[in-house]
């Protein structure tokens, strides 16, 4: 048989509808044996829906699935597992209080007379982990390990079940640059062994680096399948968005004004170990009209630093001044008078998932005069305001302002938060990983918005884990390593390699000399 037509999975003319939206509209995807096939599309383009159909979580209204050329019915994930299909979900499906080993064998336990045979399982997992260089601590509880290790656990779960068709749903969204490289290498290794991989992503560089072919989806429709060898990132992004996209951030040189936020000798306790400091004696300023980026690998104190400034977390020592006011011990409410905050965790802090989009848009503002009269909320006004924001920030949802936040795609949830926060027009914009998990179209838009805010004279404090974003968007970069600021850099004078050295702690700068 011609290797080219040796399809292991074919999804033909799949159509899946949800109330108010056609998530998949006549999409065809053919996966060859031993290839890495990328699925590219914006948020809400229907990638996750298509994969959920393949995994048996949704039943399509139209279309069929072929496995090795034969038609199959996949009614639930068990059917998918039986066909050797495994999936690493974007949000991991792990039992937090179980150990790594327990999580891996969960649902596929070897038992003898009803008793668990963990020893055999341990041997098998260990062998797999060594073979592919997927290091995990088998006896650690999942809640205690890093996100990167959690992902390795998910991958080992698939391997433990001898899956041959591996689906990765936006696997790199949560990883550090080093971890991404490792994952890419592992994926190539899998493909070499004849496993077939579906790689869902909207990061063009990664797709170009690792995938053999790529299928592009846009607004629920299949746009086409092409070889990565015969294309480039610009063409792919144009296909995905449907118009030419600006991949580089367009901005003029910053004209910083006076300091808006001043942080002096700040120390803050760690979220995990309360008696340890995660932020040690950190001092810096964010000035009006500049984008200051805090770069660093996840877990080096950025979250705690942000929490201490926004008031969500505690401060052990030091002083925070915002617009000339000492806010070191102020309430969140009084801090938010001059600060808008795009939070790191959009589900935990950013949105009330069981509220409508309209209600979420006024989370901080419902007591303002325009939205209430004598304590009664002016619902038409709230709705109108939400519609304005939805329009301005292109927030897509099934039922407009009445959509439950829970029912929206991750990218649109993030857009909603950004719309709400930027429209509050505060002196300081605290943007924590504002583009995490977003597609190029949305990233382009959000970056442009942040630059616009900067040009209007606002101070932007950006916390980002993405090197590309750090280098392209910021005017000044502070690198955090183990709770300290180890470097102050300017994007035009540095590059990813140098930044990486600071981020990994290999290089540090005496800031007293470097400080401007």
């Amino acid at each position, binding site marked *: 048989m011609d290797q080219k037509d040796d399809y292991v999975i074919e999804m033909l003319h799949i159509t899946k509808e949800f109330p108010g939206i056609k998530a998949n509209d006549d999409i065809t995807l053919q996966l060859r044996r031993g290839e890495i096939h990328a699925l590219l599309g914006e948020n809400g383009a229907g990638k996750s829906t298509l994969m959920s159909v393949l995994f048996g979580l949704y039943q399509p209204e139209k279309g069929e699935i072929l496995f090795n050329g034969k038609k199959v019915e996949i009614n639930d994930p068990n059917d998918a597992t039986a066909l050797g299909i495994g999936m690493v979900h974007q949000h991991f499906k792990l039992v937090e209080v179980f150990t790594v080993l327990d999580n891996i064998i969960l649902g596929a336990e070897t038992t003898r007379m009803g008793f668990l045979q963990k020893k055999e399982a341990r041997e098998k997992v260990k062998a797999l982990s060594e073979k592919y260089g997927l290091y995990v601590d088998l006896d650690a509880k999942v809640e205690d390990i890093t996100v990167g290790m959690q992902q390795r656990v998910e991958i080992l779960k698939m391997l433990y079940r001898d899956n041959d068709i591996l689906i990765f749903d936006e696997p790199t969204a949560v990883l550090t640059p080093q971890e991404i490289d490792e994952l890419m290498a592992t994926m190539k290794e899998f493909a070499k062994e004849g496993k077939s991989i579906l790689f869902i992503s909207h990061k063009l560089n990664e797709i170009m680096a690792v995938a053999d072919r790529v299928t592009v989806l846009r607004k629920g429709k299949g746009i086409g399948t092409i070889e990565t060898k015969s294309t480039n990132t610009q063409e792919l992004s144009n296909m995905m968005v449907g118009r030419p996209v600006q991949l580089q951030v367009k901005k003029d040189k910053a004209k910083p004004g006076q300091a808006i936020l001043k942080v002096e000798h700040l120390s803050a306790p760690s979220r995990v170990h309360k008696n340890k400091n995660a932020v040690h004696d950190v001092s810096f300023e964010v000035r009006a009209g500049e984008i200051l980026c805090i770069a660093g690998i996840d877990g080096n104190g950025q979250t705690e630093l942000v929490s201490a400034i926004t008031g*969500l977390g505690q401060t052990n020592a030091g002083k925070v001044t915002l617009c000339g006011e000492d806010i070191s011990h102020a309430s*969140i409410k009084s801090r938010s008078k001059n600060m808008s905050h795009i939070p790191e965790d959009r589900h935990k*802090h*950013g949105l009330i998932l*069981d509220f409508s989009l309209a209600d979420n848009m006024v989370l901080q503002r*419902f*007591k303002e005069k325009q939205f209430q009269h004598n304590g*009664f909320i002016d619902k038409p006004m709230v709705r109108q305001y939400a519609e304005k924001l939805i329009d301005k920030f292109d927030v897509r949802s099934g039922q407009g302002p009445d959509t439950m936040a829970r029912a929206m795609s991750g990218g649109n949830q993030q857009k909603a938060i950004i719309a709400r926060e930027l429209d509050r027009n505060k002196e300081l914009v605290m943007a924590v990983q504002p583009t995490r998990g977003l597609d190029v179209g949305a990233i382009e838009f959000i970056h442009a918005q942040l630059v616009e805010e900067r040009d209007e004279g606002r101070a932007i404090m950006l916390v980002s884990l993405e090197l590309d974003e750090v280098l392209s968007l910021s005017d000044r970069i502070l690198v955090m390593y183990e709770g300290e600021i180890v470097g102050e850099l300017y994007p035009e004078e540095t590059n990813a390699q140098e930044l990486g050295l600071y981020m990994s702690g290999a290089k540090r700068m005496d800031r007293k000399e470097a400080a401007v």
Partner: protein
Amino acid sequence: MSRKNNEPRLLEGNGFQSVLSSVVSIIIGLLFGMLLIFIVGALDKNMSMKTVWEGMRLVIGGLFSTGRGASGELAWGFNSINFGNMLFRATPLIMTGLSVAFAYKTGLFNIGAPGQYLMGAMTSLMIALGIPSDKVHPVIIWILAFLGAMIAGAIWGAIPGIFKALLNTNEVIACIMTNWIAANVVTWLFDISKFKNVTESTKSGYIYKTTFNNVATTKLGLDKLFPGSQINGGIIIAILIAIGIYILMSKTTFGYELRACGANKDAAKYAGLKDKRDIVLSMAIAGALSAAGAALYYLSGNTELFWSTYQSLPAIGFNGIPVAMLALTNPIGVIFSALFMSMLNIIGLQITSLTAYNEYITDVIIAVIVYLSAFSLLIKQFIARRMSRKKKEGAK
């Protein structure tokens, strides 16, 4: 044609599906009750099939039973006593149901309703009996007693709230403890008070009716509408409070804030809302609602409190939980679910007095309905799925 266009919108409405799911729970519960009546009757040699058939009919229509006619057959029709008593008995249930529903909307499980109810009972009775009506107008005493009860309940409800807000203690545990503290405090306070046996020395261990001091809820003419029953204006007050709570929750900024805290505490904190204050306030309001239920019940003029049994906890407080759940914690729905629960109560009395069955059978039916009401969300999803499938088929 315009009606046809409106129809699907009504059927797809969230509210409609909620009501439907509660109705389905109720119907299954009643069917189960009939089945139970049938099985019990069939197994009992002393019961004829006629009795079984009567019992089954009473499960459904007991509210409309007017006893037995001259021929000895069951007679049916409007029974003013049944209706009036149903409304009377629903009054405190509406309030405890509201209490649980209100707390639930703000993310708290108020299992402390019995304790709050007891504090309300004690405070309202002590004020109603303690202020002499020859010096103060009885209406003023009534108002003072009612408000006093609400304040006592609010304080009692706030205690678990404060523990939750400051120490992150689970409110369920704190509520259970405050329940038992209330039971014993109330018993003790009545024991050492001068209010026991205020009129009838032949009865021991009673707090007698507040009518002794000329204090009673106004009848508002409802006794003319339902002659012979215990009804009074309390039911109107309870319904008005339910409507008030509905407006508070869904239309005001305060309600928005409480719901936000309930739905996502972290996001509420992020938005600068005072999540801790809201927890305490929410529990205080829930407590005030339960206590108001007790006040409406004991100030009615028809009731007396046998205080020495109050070392146990009043069922009305706990029954607020199923009332709230059956109403899917909607304040307006609480009115109807409380009415339904008290109707079952009346049916129980009818079955006992007219047939060889005892009233415990209705307790079993209530239990089944309560059990099913926990599934009402599941039933709701089932209905929603059925409807969307039907719509799809229609589109084809």
